[in-house]
C-alpha cells in the first residue's frame, strides 16, 4: 500500500538527514595546485589528464565572486573541470576568495584591470613553462555568471590576454535579467545605504534575494529530496548543491556599488557611458571571437540577458542555449559537452 511506502520514504529521509549530509559531503575534490595568489584570490591549476596524454589549449575560468568555485567541481561525475581535464585541457580557475571587512574598499576597477588580467597573464606564463602553450600563443577564457560579466569588461579594456572568450549565463544586458533588474531599480534600491552601512554586501542578504526570486523553490527543494530519496546518487547531489548554495561569499562593498550602478542602474555594458577608474567601459573594444552560452531555464540570467553580448561586443559573437537552470547547468551533461565542442572548434 502507498501509505506504508510513504512511511518508509520518510524514514529514509530522516535517516539521511540525521547523518548531517550537507556538512559532510566532499565537493571540489579534483586534484589541483594553487599557482598564484593576490589578496584573497587564487589561481587554481588543474593539470590535463587525457588517457592518451593529449594536451589541448589551456582554458582560464573566471568564476563568479558571489559564490565558491566548487560548483564547477561539485562531485566526481558531476564536474565540469573533471570533464575538461579528461579531455586534455589544462584548466586555470580564478577563485576570488572570501572578502572580509578589510576588502570593503576594493574597487571594481582593481578587480577587472589588475587582479583578473594578472591572473590571466600568470596562467599563460605557467602554461608556457609547462609546454601547454607556445611563446606566441594565448589561452582561451571562460567566465561564469558575474565572473563572465567581469571577464568581458576586463578583456575589452586589456587586449592581448586571451585568444577567444566564452561566457556562461553571464548577464550583459542587465535590463533583460527579469525580476532581479526590477528589484535593483535605480529609483528604489538603496545601494549607497547598503554599502555605507554594511560595508560589503552581505552574503546572507544575497542568498535571501536569490531565494526570493523563486519563493516556492525553497519548499520544492525539500519536496524533491523527499520524492527522490530512493534514487541512486540523488541524495548526495542534493546535499552537495545545498552545501554550495549555503556557502555564499560577501561582495566587496565599493566594487558592489560600482557594479550595481553601472550594470543594473544604467545597463551600461549595452548602453555605454560608464567610466570606471577614469577609463570608459566599452565592450565594443573587445575584438576577439566570443561565444555566449545561456541556460534555457535560467531565472537569474535569462538567455536575453546573456545574449546581450551580441549587440555589445566588438568582435564576432556566436550564441547557444544549453539545457538546465542557472546553477544546474554546471552539473548537467549538456553544457560540458558543448564547451568541449567550442574548445575543439
Amino acid at each position, binding site marked *: *500500500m502507498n501509505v506504508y511506502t510513504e512511511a518508509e520514504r520518510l524514514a529514509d529521509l530522516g535517516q539521511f538527514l540525521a547523518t548531517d549530509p550537507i556538512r559532510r559531503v566532499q565537493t571540489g575534490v579534483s586534484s589541483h595546485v594553487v599557482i598564484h595568489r593576490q589578496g584573497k584570490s587564487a589561481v587554481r591549476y588543474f593539470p590535463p589528464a587525457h588517457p592518451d596524454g593529449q594536451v589541448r589549449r589551456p582554458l582560464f575560468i573566471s568564476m563568479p565572486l558571489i559564490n565558491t568555485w566548487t560548483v564547477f567541481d561539485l562531485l566526481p561525475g558531476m564536474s565540469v573541470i573533471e570533464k575538461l581535464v579528461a579531455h586534455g585541457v589544462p584548466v586555470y580557475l580564478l577563485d576570488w576568495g572570501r572578502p572580509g*571587512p578589510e576588502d*570593503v574598499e*576594493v574597487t571594481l576597477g582593481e578587480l577587472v584591470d589588475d587582479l583578473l588580467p594578472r591572473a590571466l597573464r600568470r596562467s599563460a606564463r605557467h602554461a608556457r613553462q609547462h609546454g601547454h602553450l607556445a611563446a606566441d600563443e594565448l589561452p582561451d577564457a571562460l567566465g561564469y555568471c558575474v565572473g563572465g560579466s567581469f571577464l568581458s569588461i576586463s578583456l575589452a579594456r586589456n587586449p592581448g590576454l586571451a585568444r577567444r572568450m566564452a561566457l556562461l549565463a553571464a548577464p550583459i544586458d542587465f535590463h533583460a535579467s527579469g525580476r532581479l533588474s526590477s528589484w535593483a531599480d535605480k529609483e*528604489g534600491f*538603496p545601494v549607497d545605504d547598503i554599502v555605507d552601512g554594511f560595508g560589503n554586501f552581505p552574503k546572507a542578504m544575497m542568498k535571501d534575494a536569490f531565494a526570493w526570486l523563486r*519563493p516556492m523553490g525553497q519548499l520544492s527543494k525539500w519536496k524533491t529530496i523527499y520524492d527522490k530519496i530512493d534514487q541512486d546518487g540523488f541524495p548526495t547531489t542534493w546535499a552537495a548543491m545545498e552545501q554550495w548554495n549555503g556557502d555564499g561569499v560577501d561582495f566587496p562593498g565599493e566594487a558592489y556599488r560600482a557594479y550595481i550602478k553601472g550594470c543594473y542602474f544604467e545597463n551600461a555594458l549595452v548602453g555605454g557611458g560608464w567610466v570606471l577608474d577614469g577609463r570608459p567601459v566599452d565592450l565594443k573594444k573587445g575584438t576577439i571571437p566570443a561565444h555566449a552560452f545561456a541556460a534555457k531555464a535560467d531565472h537569474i540570467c535569462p538567455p536575453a540577458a546573456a545574449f546581450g553580448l551580441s549587440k555589445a561586443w566588438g568582435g564576432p559573437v556566436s550564441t547557444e542555449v544549453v539545457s538546465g537552470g542557472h546553477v544546474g547547468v554546471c552539473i548537467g551533461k549538456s553544457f560540458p559537452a558543448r564547451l568541449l565542442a567550442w574548445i575543439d572548434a
Partner: protein
Amino acid sequence: MSQPDAAFPDFKGMSEELYQQWEKSMTAWWDQVLESPSFLDATNKNVSGMARMRARYEEQVDEQLMKLHLPTRGDMTRLARIATLLEKRLLEMEDTILDLRDGMAARDAAIARLEKETIQARIEAAEARLELRARLDELAVRLDAGAEGAEPAAKANKPSPKKS
C-alpha cells in the same frame, strides 16, 4: 515499492495533484507580491533602515573604542587596505621581474640559436675545405701519376742519338 491497490484510492496521486495546484496558485500570488511597487518600496525602505541602523551602530562602537584608546574597525580596515596596496605594488614589481626574466630567457635562447648556427656554419666551411683539400690531393696524386707515366713514354719516344 508497493503497487497501488485497486481497493484503495490513490492518495499519493491525489495529494500530488493537490500540491501542484497549491504551488501554482501560491507562485502566481507571490509573483504579484514580488512585482508590486508598494511591496518593493516597503522592502527597499526596510533594507535602507537596517543599513542606516547598522551604520549608526558601527559609529557608536567606534566612538566607544576610541574612548578606550583601542583601534576601531575603520583603523583595522585602513591597515589591511595598506597591506593590500603594498601587496599589489610587490606583485607589479614581480610582474616586471618576470617580464625581464622572460625577455632574458628569450634573448639567451636567441643567442644560443645564433651561436649554434655560427658553429654549424664554421663546421660546414671546415668540412668543405677538407673536402676540397682531399680533392686537390687526389688531383695531385693523379697528376703525379700522369707525370710519372708520361716520363718513360717520353723517354721511349725520344729519338736515339745517331751512332757514329
